[in-house]
């Protein structure tokens, strides 16, 4: 089933309302002062000229934020360094804000921002974990640079390594990625008597409400967060960012609405990024190709503020991949670096794990002389639930069926024949790569619950409220239809309320592929509860047993008696759904051809077979696959935040340097789904948002490595994402040229 999208009319006519579009009388605009140094003492900050410039209402610095609490930590650890909303005495990443100018319009705010003069004394930077671990002094006095050091699973026994037929070991790199939603971050804060109304392009409005309230010392009830149309998020819009705290303070102090719309340079330089891991992988297998051990060491460059220190733990939790492996161990360290904070980006820890494991499987296969697909097949998890050594319980699946279907679409035999022909007769190197993945959707303890409420109204309509928050995933279409299905009414009788903390009292937003799985299930439960409540009300009114009251599309009947649920209004039912996470999985395949002279990679075919459990709206799910695989292609081939030796991004030309895939970069696709229902979910649904980001990178890199296998002198170990032409060219020549 694919429904017509309810959202579309306003969006295709330009009547969407994003934060930048909101008209708020008297609204001022903010701009931040962001030094382009990675690490420097802030010895002084002269704002006198800026404060006197025309149209300027305020220039806020750290001195003005004395009564404001630290930026709330999403990651709860001890000994965390304080995160002040504006730099106090040391800049710790390029673009970290030292001041905020509030003016009549953005032009004037920027005029004054340019007149703010910071006195910066540069210090050596620590762009990556290795450099940071070798630094003499901690980044924050009195705080450890390693903010997280966690082991998952038991260390692999020495005998296991010793007894293995093969052991492979490799260093892998996960580059930094900029989430790059086309609408960057944006917030508008209007002061209210005793509180605030906040419009924000956000994934987690209730957390933002709580975070702003905590930072400003307000009751949560005094802060209302409204999420209007959101132009994509991809993990980058969940925290309570320091800029948001500052804008809220400015609105309070000035008693005027204040808006900040992040520009693209800020988004590329100073917003959170994803990935950013240095990995050391060790894997062992016996002579039959059974994987006996995986050991994964991750050093994550977590940036200057450890808001995302929990993300790399996901990598450790996922270190078994799709395989039944007796011994799996991961050590995860999150290390402070002089870079913008590393946080969630589509996949958030799982792409990093899948990449490592799937590269390792290919290395094992090569060493054993086994077909890499066959090696995978021998090790796939087949019995469910399956407990992994690093603490996951895979709920369900038929991994082999997904592999079979992927192979049908990939047609590896045909390509292998072509590969052999080219190796004999000459021709561009061609490679075939496969990757299996298992991911986790729904979230982690603490957010594995969601709230929904469904209300019957006197006009015959229904209002469905849920704590998720759409950033483009068609909630207005899918959720009312889902509720209508339970109620047995036409979907247009159900209106969705979402993304407004005043209208929906609690919720956990939309990330971790949780909207349908958690929010949909909560709505499903609330709709069912409304039916029960209506029957109970009618039974009481009529003095009959509830068992004798029937519900039929909003009409209640018992014998000759009949009433519309509208007549019982106001009537509402809440539901709090909670469940363990779900484990979507799938198999990706890629065929690539390499220009041996330039190193350019041409993807000739990309295959994806995903299992998202029971699919509610095929169009939505297909769109999620397409979008996530395009972003996966971006990681594999194009996207990267290159840093200088101190950690300053080398992205002088914005999106001419940070390269997103365009329509002309999309290869021929062959996509399919299997659908093994999630056992812990009433809809059978698993999350569908992140698969392509997880499956594509290892499939493409494995394919390129496979192509290089046939080139004398080539060294596939030199491949690292993104597979730029220069990187592939260097690997082609074994680093010898």
């Amino acid at each position, binding site marked *: 089933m694919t429904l017509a999208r309810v959202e579309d009319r306003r969006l295709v006519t330009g009547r969407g309302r994003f934060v930048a579009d909101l008209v708020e009388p008297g609204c001022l605009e903010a701009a931040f002062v962001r030094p382009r140094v990675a690490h420097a003492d802030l010895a002084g900050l002269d704002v006198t000229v800026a404060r006197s410039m025309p149209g300027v209402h305020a220039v806020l610095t750290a001195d003005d934020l004395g009564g404001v609490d630290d930026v709330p930590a999403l990651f709860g650890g001890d000994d965390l360094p304080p995160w002040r909303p504006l730099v106090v005495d040391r800049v710790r990443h390029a673009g970290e804000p030292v001041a905020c100018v509030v003016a009549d319009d953005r032009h004037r705010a920027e005029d004054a921002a340019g007149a703010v003069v910071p006195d910066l004394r540069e210090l050596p930077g620590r762009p990556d974990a290795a450099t940071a671990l070798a630094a003499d002094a901690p980044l924050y006095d009195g705080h450890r640079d390693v903010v997280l050091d966690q082991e998952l699973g038991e260390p692999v026994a020495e005998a296991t390594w010793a007894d293995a037929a093969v052991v492979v070991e490799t260093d892998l790199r996960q580059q930094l990625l900029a989430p790059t939603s086309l609408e960057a971050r944006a917030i508008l804060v209007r002061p209210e008597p005793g509180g605030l109304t906040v419009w924000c392009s956000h994934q987690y409005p209730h957390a933002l409400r709580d975070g702003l309230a905590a930072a400003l010392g307000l009751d949560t009830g005094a802060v209302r967060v409204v999420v209007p149309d959101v132009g994509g998020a991809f993990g980058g819009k969940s925290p309570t960012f320091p800029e948001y705290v500052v804008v809220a303070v400015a609105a309070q102090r000035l008693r005027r609405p204040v808006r900040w719309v992040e520009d693209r340079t800020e988004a590329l330089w100073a917003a959170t990024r994803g990935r950013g891991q240095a990995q050391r992988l060790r894997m062992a297998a016996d002579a039959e190709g059974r994987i006996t051990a995986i050991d994964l060491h991750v050093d994550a460059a977590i940036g200057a503020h450890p808001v995302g220190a929990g993300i790399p733990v996901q990598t450790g939790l996922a270190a078994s991949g799709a395989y039944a492996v007796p011994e799996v161990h991961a050590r995860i360290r999150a290390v402070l670096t002089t870079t913008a904070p590393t946080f969630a980006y589509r996949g958030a820890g799982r792409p990093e794990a899948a990449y490592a494991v799937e590269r390792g499987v290919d290395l094992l296969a090569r060493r054993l002389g086994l077909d890499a697909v066959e090696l995978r097949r021998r090790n796939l998890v087949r019995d469910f639930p399956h407990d992994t050594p690093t603490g996951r319980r895979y709920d369900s699946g038929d991994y082999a069926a997904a592999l079979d279907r992927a192979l049908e679409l990939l047609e590896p035999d045909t390509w292998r024949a072509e590969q052999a022909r080219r190796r004999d007769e000459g021709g561009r190197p061609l490679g075939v790569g496969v990757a299996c993945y298992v991911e986790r959707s729904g979230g982690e303890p603490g957010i594995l619950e969601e709230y929904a409420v469904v209300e019957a109204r006197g006009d015959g309509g229904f209002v469905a409220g849920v704590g998720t928050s759409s950033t483009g995933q068609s909630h207005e279409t899918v959720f009312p239809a889902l509720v209508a299905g339970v109620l047995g009414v036409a979907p247009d009788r159900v209106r969705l309320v979402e993304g407004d903390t005043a209208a929906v009292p609690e919720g956990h937003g939309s990330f971790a592929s949780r909207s349908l799985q958690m929010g949909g299930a909560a709505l499903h439960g609330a709709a069912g509860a409304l039916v029960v409540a209506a029957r109970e009300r009618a039974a009481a009114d009529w003095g009959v047993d509830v068992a004798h009251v029937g519900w039929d599309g909003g009409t209640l009947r018992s014998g000759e008696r009949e009433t519309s649920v509208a007549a019982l209004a106001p009537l509402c039912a809440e539901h709090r759904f909670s469940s363990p996470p779900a484990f979507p999985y799938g198999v990706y395949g890629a065929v690539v051809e390499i220009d041996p002279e330039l190193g350019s990679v041409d993807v000739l075919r990309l295959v994806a077979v995903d299992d998202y459990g029971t699919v509610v709206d095929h169009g939505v799910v297909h769109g999620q696959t397409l979008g996530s695989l395009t972003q996966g292609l971006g990681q594999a081939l194009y996207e990267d935040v290159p840093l200088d030796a101190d950690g300053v991004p080398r992205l002088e030309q914005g999106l001419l340097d940070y390269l*997103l895939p365009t329509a002309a970069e999309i290869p021929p696709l062959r996509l399919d789904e299997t659908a093994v229902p999630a056992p812990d979910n009433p809809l059978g649904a698993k999350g569908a948002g992140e698969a392509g980001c997880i499956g594509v990178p290892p499939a493409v890199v494995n394919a390129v490595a496979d192509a290089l296998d046939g080139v004398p002198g080539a060294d596939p170990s030199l491949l690292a994402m993104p597979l730029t032409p220069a990187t592939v060219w260097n690997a082609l020549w074994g680093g010898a040229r």
Partner: protein
Amino acid sequence: MRIGFTLDGRDVAVDVEPRRTLADVLRDDLGQTGVHLGCEHGVCGTCTVLVDGEPVRACLQLTAQVARRHVRTVAGLEGPDGALDPLQEAFSTERGLQCGFCTPGFLMLLRGALDEDPTVVDDPARLDALLASNLCRCTGYEGIRNAARRARDS
């Protein structure tokens, strides 16, 4: 400075600082918030509008440059009766949008291209080269490509 031009078929005049770009003036002075700002350096294409029928980046035009010209935005795609342009219909039918932020820019890019030469959508390579003008981070472009073809047929 005072600048007059035609916006979606009606004459408008604004009195703005010379530094104000067409995108900012359309949004802030003329209320055309369907003209989105995604990068403000000409790459993403969310601000694409038609000037005398040609797709241009509104973020890379000073407003003074469109004096006496005809500017068409997404708001000008609908008929006077509110009927959608076939492209708008096709984007919805083909799931050519998710978050919708890039949509107005793609609509104007394609409207301009189809008006100039409808055969541009017939050749996949030409179509992709055209669509590569703008960025979408949600759809993987498949729905946009299909919408372009559907609109040409209708």
